[in-house]
């Protein structure tokens, strides 16, 4: 039982580290590129901005969830 907990914690720590690297890259690449475009959209086409905002947050939710799930599976398999 204690071994399982220790293994889970180790996997989670590794997942967190890899995830942090991915998220940092994401900030600098995607958000930097999207920032100006979204700002223009928000000032000029509010309804389109509202739709894009919901799609972006929903898309990110599904994508990041998939990334973390895959990471968790890979790391667990590796440390089994």
């Amino acid at each position, binding site marked *: 039982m204690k071994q399982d907990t220790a293994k889970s914690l180790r996997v989670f720590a590794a*997942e*967190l580290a890899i*995830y942090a690297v991915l*998220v940092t890259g*994401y*900030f600098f690449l995607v*958000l930097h590129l*999207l*920032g*100006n475009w*979204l*700002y223009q959209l*928000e000032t000029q086409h*509010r*309804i389109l*901005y*509202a*739709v*894009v*905002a*919901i799609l*972006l*947050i*929903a898309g*990110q*939710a*599904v994508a*990041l*969830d998939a990334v*973390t799930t895959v990471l*968790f599976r890979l790391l667990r398999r590796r440390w089994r």
Partner: protein
Amino acid sequence: MFFPISNSHINPLYLVVVGFVIGILGGFFGVGGSFIAGPALRLMGVDWNYAVGTDLAHIVGKSIVAARKHRTLGNVDMKLGMIMALGTIGGAEGGAQLIQALKRAGNVNTVVSWVAIVVYVGISVFMLWESHTTLRLHKGRSRRTVQAAESKVDHSAFGPVTKKIQGMKIWPMINLPTSGIRISLWIILSVAVVGGFFSGFLGGGAGYIRMPSMVYVLGVPTHLAVGTDLFEIVISASYGTFTHAIKGNVDILIALVMHTGAVIGTQIGVVATQYFAGPKIRLAFVPLPLIGAAIVVYTLVTGHKL
């Protein structure tokens, strides 16, 4: 990092940490965490209208992840969620209309603040009494007869009242096999309208009132109430995000950054529900509405927005 839409400078690490904390709360309790996210953004100098709208957008993403996780674990009653969504949207519109009426009367801040304090403290006191009583009764029984394997069965001291509500045969009666209950459609819609009303009136997803209502009034097991509530929040927060974005109150870039932290936090929260029995989850929920009440009392006493 500069966020041009809300014209604010915020350290992205701060947003990630705030998202992480709210993610844990959302995954574990099935609440949106608006009573923490809004003030956290306000602390960084984001205007109040952007704090409310951006928080709603962030809640959409967080709740999608949490609801998906709960669905994988079998914690979402889709039929109940779909029915409740109808009532929630109607109630939210009613709450928003009352806000508009109070705005016209010129006393919106005072009325909403007092209602919030009464609701938050009332929920906390009731849940403290109920979960404490249930745990005490269950502890006494478990010493004598109940096996350890049964410790995750959902008991409630409010059970007899819930049974009476379920026994009200008002046509049409709805079967909810996932939740294991049969109840009148009107009772489900009433709970949803009340939850939606508080969402429109006090802001956020109103999970702090919908989740307890589902457990105590409808008799939905706590784990299912948490998952189904999150499913509900996806719908009500999406509606809120859309209307706020049209009014220019959403900085989606801030929401996207906050959400990256929430993804990991939610995973921890959802997994944690598997290790706690219903009454323990409800007992741990008690301080959360009190935090909201404390913030409102602070704003009333000092006159500051936060």
